[in-house]
C-alpha cells in the first residue's frame, strides 16, 4: 500500500512532538523554537506529499472506488466498545493533510518575520505547531473520538492564538468569545457522537458512513437528530449563521493566525466534518417540507453566504472584511454540501484555503510594512500598489480567485457549487449563490480600492512619504513574508486546474471522491452526478460578478477617488460651506461623509441593517446569553444555594437549637415541677398503656 500511507500517523505525531520540544527547550534555541516548528511542518509536508503521491497511485491502481487505508491501534476499550487511534486515509483526508501541512509551513515561515521580537515568540510557535498537530489528528481520525480530540485541540489553539496578546482586554475577550461560541457548538458534537453511538453501536467513521449510506439503522428520526446535533458543532466551528459572530472578533489575533486558523484551515473543520460524515448528514438532514425537498445544511449555508457578504461592506478593518468573506465562503461550502455537490464543496475548501490565506497574509504584509500595524483601511491605507508590488500582485491574484473570475481557481470551485445548486433543483440557492458572487466582488473591489488605490492615508501616507524621502519607489516586506505570498498567489491562480470542469479535468474529483461514502446516481440515498459544465449556465453568475465589480468600483471612485463625481461635489460644497481643506484631511469628517453616503446610498441600507441586526440582535443575543448565564448563576447562587439549600441546612440547625431552647423551660430548676413531671408522666403512661392493653 505504500510506506507513506501506512505511516501517516507520523504526520500529526511530528508536529505534536515538536510542540512538546518547543515548550521544553524552545526558549533556549537560537531562533526561539521557530526552527523546530518549521522543521516539523516541513517533515509533515514531505510525509503528506508522499502520502498524496501514494494515494494517487493507489487510486489509479484500483479501478473504480479506492478503499480507504486504515491503520488503527486500540486506544482503549470498554466492554464491547473499542475505540482506536490511528489513521484513516482516503482522498478527503489526504487532500486535507497536504493542505494543512502546506499552508502551515508557509504561515510559519511568514510568522518568523511577522512576529519577530514578540515577547511570546516561542509560545506563538508552540501554539501554532500544536494547532497543526491537532488539525492533522482530526483530519486523519478514523473514529469520532479521535476527531473530537483534534477538534478540541484546534479550539484550544484558537483560544491561545487569538488571545496571544492577552495584555489587552479586547484580545482576551475575543479569545474567550471564540472558545465559548465554538464550545456551544461542541455541545452538539458531544451529544451527536453519543447519538451516533446509540444508532450505529460504533464510533468508527468508516462503519458509520457505510451503515448510514446503506440504510442500516433503526430510526431515521434519531439519525436526523444526530445530524442536527453534529451540524450545530459545524455551525460553531465554521462560523455559520447564527454562530458566526466570533470569527470577525477572532481577528484580534496575529494575522498569520487569522490566515491559518481563521480562514484556511481550522474554520473549515465544520465543513470537513460534514464532508467526512456525509452520509449521516445527507440522509439525516434530508427534509421534505411542503413538498420542497431540501437539506438543512444548504439553508444555513445559504443564509450565511448572504449575511456575511453583506456585513463585509461596512468594515473598515481589512481583516474584518476578510473574516466576513471567510464566513461567506464557508457558507458556500456548506451550501455546496447541502445541495449535494460534495466534490465541489471539498474542492472549494482546497482552493479557498490558498487564496484566502494569501489575502490574509497580504493584509498582514501591508500592516507589517505599509501601515504601521494598523488594519484600518480608511485611516491608514490607500495607494500602496506601487510601493508594495509583490503584496499587491498576490492580493490581486487572490482577489480574482475569490471573486470567481474565470480561469482562476475560485471560479472552478465556486461556480461548480452554484451550478450544482441549479442542477439539483435548489433554485433559491442558485440565486443565493450568484447574488453572493456579486456581493463578494463588490466588497473585495472596495477593499482593494481602499487598500491599494487612491491616496495614501494615515500610516500608509507616512510610509510612502518615508519612501520618497529615501528615494525609493518600492519597499515590500522581507522575504519570509513575500515568498509565501508569491507561492500562495500562484496557487490561487492555478490550483483550480486540478478540477477544471470547463476543460473536463477531473483529477481532484477522481482522487477524493472515494471518501463520499454514498453511491452516485442511483439508490435511495444516492447523490446526483455533478452537472456538466456549460458556459451558458455560468453566464448569469459571471455577469453579476462583473456588475459587482463595476458598481463597487464606481462607488469607490465616487467616494474616494474621482474629483468630478457629484458625490465628491457634495464634499466640495461642504468644504466651501464649512471652512477649509481641513475637511478633506480630517479623517473624522471623511468618516462622517462616508457614513452619509452609506446611509443615503442605495446598496448599503440592507447591509447596514444586517450589521445592526448582527451587532444588536444576534451578537446581543450571544452576549445577553452570556450575561444572562452569569446573572442566572448569580441569582441561583445567591437565592437558591445560599438562601434555600444552605438555609435549609443551617435552618435545621437553628431549629434544633430553637427546639432545645423551647424545651428548656421544662428544666425550671424547681423540684416540685420535676416531681409533678415524674408523677404526671407515670400517670399518663400508666393510663395510656392500661387503656391500650385492656
Amino acid at each position, binding site marked *: 500500500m505504500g510506506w507513506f500511507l501506512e505511516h501517516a500517523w507520523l504526520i500529526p505525531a511530528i508536529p505534536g512532538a515538536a510542540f512538546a520540544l518547543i515548550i521544553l527547550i524552545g526558549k533556549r534555541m537560537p531562533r526561539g523554537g521557530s526552527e523546530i516548528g518549521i522543521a516539523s511542518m516541513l517533515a509533515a509536508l514531505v510525509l503528506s506529499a508522499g502520502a498524496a503521491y501514494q494515494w494517487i497511485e493507489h487510486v489509479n491502481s484500483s479501478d473504480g472506488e479506492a478503499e480507504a487505508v486504515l491503520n488503527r491501534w486500540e486506544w482503549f476499550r470498554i466492554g464491547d466498545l473499542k475505540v482506536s487511534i490511528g489513521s484513516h486515509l482516503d482522498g478527503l483526508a489526504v487532500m486535507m493533510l497536504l493542505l494543512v501541512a502546506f499552508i502551515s509551513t508557509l504561515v510559519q515561515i511568514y510568522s518568523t518575520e511577522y512576529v519577530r521580537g514578540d515577547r511570546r515568540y516561542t509560545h506563538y510557535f508552540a501554539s501554532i505547531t500544536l494547532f497543526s498537530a491537532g488539525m492533522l489528528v482530526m483530519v486523519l481520525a478514523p473514529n469520532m473520538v479521535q476527531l473530537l480530540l483534534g477538534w478540541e485541540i484546534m479550539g484550544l489553539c484558537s483560544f491561545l492564538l487569538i488571545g496571544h496578546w492577552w495584555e489587552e482586554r479586547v484580545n482576551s475577550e475575543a479569545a474567550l468569545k471564540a472558545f465559548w461560541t465554538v464550545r456551544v457548538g461542541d455541545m452538539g458534537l458531544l451529544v451527536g457522537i453519543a447519538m451516533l453511538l446509540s444508532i450505529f453501536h460504533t464510533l468508527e467513521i468508516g462503519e458509520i458512513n457505510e451503515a448510514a449510506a446503506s440504510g442500516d439503522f433503526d430510526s431515521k428520526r434519531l439519525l436526523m437528530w444526530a445530524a442536527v446535533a453534529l451540524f450545530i458543532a459545524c455551525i460553531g466551528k465554521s462560523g455559520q449563521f447564527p454562530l458566526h459572530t466570533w470569527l470577525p472578533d477572532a481577528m484580534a489575533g496575529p494575522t498569520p493566525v487569522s490566515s491559518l486558523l481563521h480562514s484556511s484551515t481550522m474554520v473549515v473543520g465544520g465543513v470537513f466534518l460534514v464532508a467526512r460524515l456525509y452520509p449521516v448528514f445527507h440522509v439525516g438532514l434530508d427534509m421534505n417540507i411542503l413538498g420542497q425537498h431540501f437539506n438543512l445544511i444548504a439553508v444555513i449555508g445559504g443564509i450565511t453566504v448572504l449575511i456575511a457578504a453583506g456585513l463585509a461592506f461596512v468594515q473598515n478593518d481589512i481583516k474584518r472584511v476578510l473574516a466576513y468573506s471567510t464566513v461567506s465562503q464557508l457558507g458556500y461550502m456548506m451550501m455546496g454540501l447541502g445541495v449535494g455537490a460534495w466534490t465541489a464543496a471539498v474542492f472549494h475548501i482546497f482552493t479557498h484555503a490558498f487564496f484566502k490565506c494569501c489575502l490574509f497574509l497580504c493584509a498582514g504584509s501591508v500592516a507589517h510594512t505599509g501601515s504601521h500595524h494598523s488594519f484600518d483601511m480608511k485611516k491608514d491605507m490607500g495607494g500602496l500598489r506601487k510601493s508594495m508590488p509583490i503584496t499587491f500582485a498576490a492580493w490581486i491574484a487572490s482577489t480574482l480567485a475569490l471573486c470567481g473570475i474565470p480561469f482562476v481557481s475560485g471560479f472552478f470551485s465556486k461556480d461548480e457549487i452554484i451550478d450544482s445548486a441549479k442542477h439539483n433543483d435548489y433554485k433559491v440557492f442558485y440565486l443565493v449563490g450568484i447574488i453572493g458572487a456579486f456581493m463578494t466582488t463588490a466588497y473585495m473591489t472596495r477593499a482593494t480600492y481602499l487598500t491599494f488605490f487612491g491616496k495614501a492615508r494615515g500610516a500608509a501616507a507616512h510610509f510612502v512619504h518615508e519612501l520618497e524621502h529615501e528615494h525609493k519607489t518600492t519597499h515590500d516586506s522581507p522575504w519570509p513574508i513575500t515568498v509565501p505570498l508569491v507561492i500562495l498567489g500562484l496557487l490561487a491562480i492555478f490550483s483550480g486546474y486540478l478540477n477544471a470542469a470547463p476543460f473536463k479535468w477531473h483529477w481532484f474529483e477522481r482522487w477524493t471522491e472515494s471518501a463520499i461514502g454514498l453511491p452516485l446516481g442511483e439508490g435511495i440515498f444516492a447523490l446526483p452526478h455533478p452537472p456538466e459544465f456549460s458556459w451558458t449556465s455560468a453566464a448569469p453568475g459571471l455577469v453579476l460578478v462583473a456588475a459587482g465589480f463595476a458598481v463597487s468600483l464606481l462607488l469607490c471612485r465616487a467616494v474616494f477617488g474621482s474629483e468630478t463625481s457629484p458625490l465628491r461635489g457634495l464634499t466640495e460644497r461642504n468644504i466651501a460651506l464649512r471652512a477649509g481643506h481641513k475637511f478633506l484631511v480630517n479623517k473624522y469628517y471623511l468618516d462622517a461623509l462616508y457614513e452619509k453616503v452609506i446611509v443615503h446610498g442605495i446598496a448599503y441600507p440592507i447591509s447596514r441593517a444586517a450589521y445592526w441586526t448582527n451587532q444588536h440582535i444576534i451578537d446581543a443575543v450571544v452576549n445577553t446569553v452570556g450575561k444572562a448565564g452569569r446573572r442566572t448563576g448569580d441569582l441561583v447562587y445567591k437565592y437558591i444555594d445560599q438562601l434555600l439549600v444552605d438555609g435549609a441546612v443551617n435552618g435545621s440547625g437553628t431549629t434544633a437549637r430553637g427546639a432545645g431552647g423551647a424545651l428548656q423551660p421544662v428544666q425550671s430548676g424547681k423540684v*416540685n415541677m420535676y*416531681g409533678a413531671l415524674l408523677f404526671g408522666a407515670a400517670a399518663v403512661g400508666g393510663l395510656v398503656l392500661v387503656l391500650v392493653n385492656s
Partner: protein
Amino acid sequence: MLINEFLLLGAVLFCIGVYGVIARKNAVLVLMSIELILNSVNINLLAFDRLNGGNDGAVFALYIIAVAAAEVGVGLAMVLLIFRNRKTISLDDLSEMKG
C-alpha cells in the same frame, strides 16, 4: 374482707402523697408526704401478702420501713444542710441551676 378495701385505701393514700409532694414547698412536709406514699405501698404489700400467703410481702414491707427510716434520716440531714446554707427550707429556692 375484700382485698380492694385495702388496695383502694392504699391508692388513696398514694394519691394524697403525690398531691403533697407536688403541692408542698416546705421540704419537711414533702418528706412527710413521701411517707404517706410508702405507707400506701406497705398496706398494698401486706394485703397481697394476706392474699398470696408466704410472708414475702411482710418481709418486703419490713424492709421498706427500714429503708424509709434511712431515707428520712438522709433527707432530714439534707434539709438541715440547706437550711444552714440558705436559711430556708423552701424547695422553691432550690433553683439556682436550671435550663
